[in-house]
């Protein structure tokens, strides 16, 4: 006596900007079984290291993902710099921090919008993306690209930001802060939203940790993991607060991201205050020989670029382990027993970036 409904969720589905698919088995609207399947974006560009010189692979690495493009590029470059023992100029490191944090703002605002959309709050979606345009404007003004910045380079960055622009940027941040304050207040306090998020997709601290959750997904469950604390780039000279929340449900993850918006603007201010003058890049000669696991904090969590060179211009292996990949097992746990209406909310609550995940 079956009372089941099978819903093929995705690959084409309006709530998924990127294709994944889930086979949802429902009883009424209760999800009794969910089997995810990915691979719709697997391009296999990790193998491109065999065809592109390591200096040009930067452009490929940047296009791993359209949302955190800069961080991918920078992490790759930092990994190569580690192998080749290149000392990157201070200013470049600060600029990387600034752009990384702007990437994070961009990503989190984008996510807030999509998240609002997933529970049917269209106006909030529009509001979040309206604010996000401010971040993108800054990005375009300083790098020339809205979403694919293209300023990473081994040995530094490709563009400098003038000090006047930095001053203006700090002033603009106040406006941004104000708008984000308004947005996040609604997010965290509106009861209709809390009704949709509280106690939905809950995952305990232990589960989150042992299932390998990273980034806001882990921090929402109270696991204080933030790779910026390892002090790569210029982060060791900045005060990085780790935002956590203890409930482990969708609202907690939302809270973490909402608060991180402000830590990001704060980090940008710190960096703008401390940034020294000087060159933004050094000349790179030779080829990488050796291996390194470069870990960095992406908006979605811990990103690992494993790079292995053998002394030629072509790397042996580039392996990108993205936060979403490791957040998928916790996601499966979260989805068990939720309602159909919660599925998009929970899926989005880990902020999935499938194009990174599948490379």
């Amino acid at each position, binding site marked *: 006596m079956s009372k089941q409904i099978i819903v093929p969720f995705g*690959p*084409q*589905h*309006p*709530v998924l*900007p*990127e*294709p994944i698919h889930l086979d949802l088995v429902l009883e009424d609207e209760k999800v009794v079984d969910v089997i995810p399947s990915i*691979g*719709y*974006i*697997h*391009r*296999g*560009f990790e*193998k*491109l290291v065999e*065809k592109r010189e390591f200096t040009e692979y930067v*452009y*490929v690495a940047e*296009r*791993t*993902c*359209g*949302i955190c*493009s800069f961080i991918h590029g920078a992490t790759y470059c930092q990994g190569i710099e580690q192998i080749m023992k290149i000392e990157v100029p201070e200013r470049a490191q600060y600029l990387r921090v600034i752009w990384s944090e702007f990437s994070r703002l961009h990503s989190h605002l*984008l996510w807030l*919008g*999509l998240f609002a959309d997933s529970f049917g709050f269209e106006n909030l*979606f*529009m509001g979040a*993306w*309206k604010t*996000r*345009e401010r971040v*993108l404007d800054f990005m375009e003004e300083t790098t020339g*690209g*809205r*979403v*694919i910045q293209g300023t990473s380079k081994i040995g530094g960055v490709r563009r400098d930001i003038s000090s006047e622009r930095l001053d203006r940027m700090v002033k603009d941040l106040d406006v941004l802060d104000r708008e984000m304050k308004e947005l996040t207040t609604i997010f965290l306090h509106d009861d209709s939203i809390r009704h949709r998020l509280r106690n939905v997709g809950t995952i305990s601290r232990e589960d989150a940790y042992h299932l390998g959750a990273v980034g806001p997904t882990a921090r929402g469950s109270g696991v204080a993991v933030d790779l910026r604390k390892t002090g790569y780039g210029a982060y060791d000279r900045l005060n990085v607060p780790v935002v956590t929340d203890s409930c482990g449900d969708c609202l907690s993850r939302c809270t973490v991201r909402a608060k991180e918006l402000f830590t990001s603007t704060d980090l940008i201010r710190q960096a703008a205050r401390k940034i020294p003058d000087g060159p933004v890049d050094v000349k790179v000669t030779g080829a990488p020989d050796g291996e390194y696991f470069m870990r960095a904090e992406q908006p979605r969590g811990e990103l690992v670029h494993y790079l292995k060179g053998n002394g030629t211009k072509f790397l042996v292996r580039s392996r990108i382990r993205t936060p979403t990949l490791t957040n998928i097992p916790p996601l499966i746990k979260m989805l068990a027993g939720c309602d159909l209406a919660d599925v998009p909310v929970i899926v989005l609550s880990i902020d999935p*970036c*499938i*194009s990174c995940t*599948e490379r």
Partner: protein
Amino acid sequence: MTYLQKSPWIVHYNASSCNGCDIEILAALTPVFDVERFGIINTGNPKHADILLCTGSVNEQNKVPLKNVYDQIPEPKVVVAIGICASSGGIFRECYNVSGGIDKIIPVDVYVPGCAARPESIIDGVVTALGILEQKRLAMQTEGSPAGTKAGEAR
């Protein structure tokens, strides 16, 4: 100008794109660009759509869904390939799992270059598509059957 041109509804499919173009399509819906000015609605359902906005270089697993989504759009319909991955495979052209461009799978009417394609560029692309949509409608009227492949035929 017919109604078709005043109310193009879109459906978006991400055929292994890097996300850049996708979020720009979404950005085009949001206040700063607001394509609803032109009557464009992101329907999310191919059966309601007129225009397929497609991003990404099409990998092995995406071929079938892409074709399926295309087939489910009722005639007249146009396909707009957004971004250079969708147009030619782009930087990922040489990857083992990439077919290289939407037009390898389904007929493409408009190519929108850019990496990532800017929202303005996407608007331009859709506007260009409107002209083609109108031609297809006329062709459908005169011939009695749609200009492209019929929806059911391909199965």
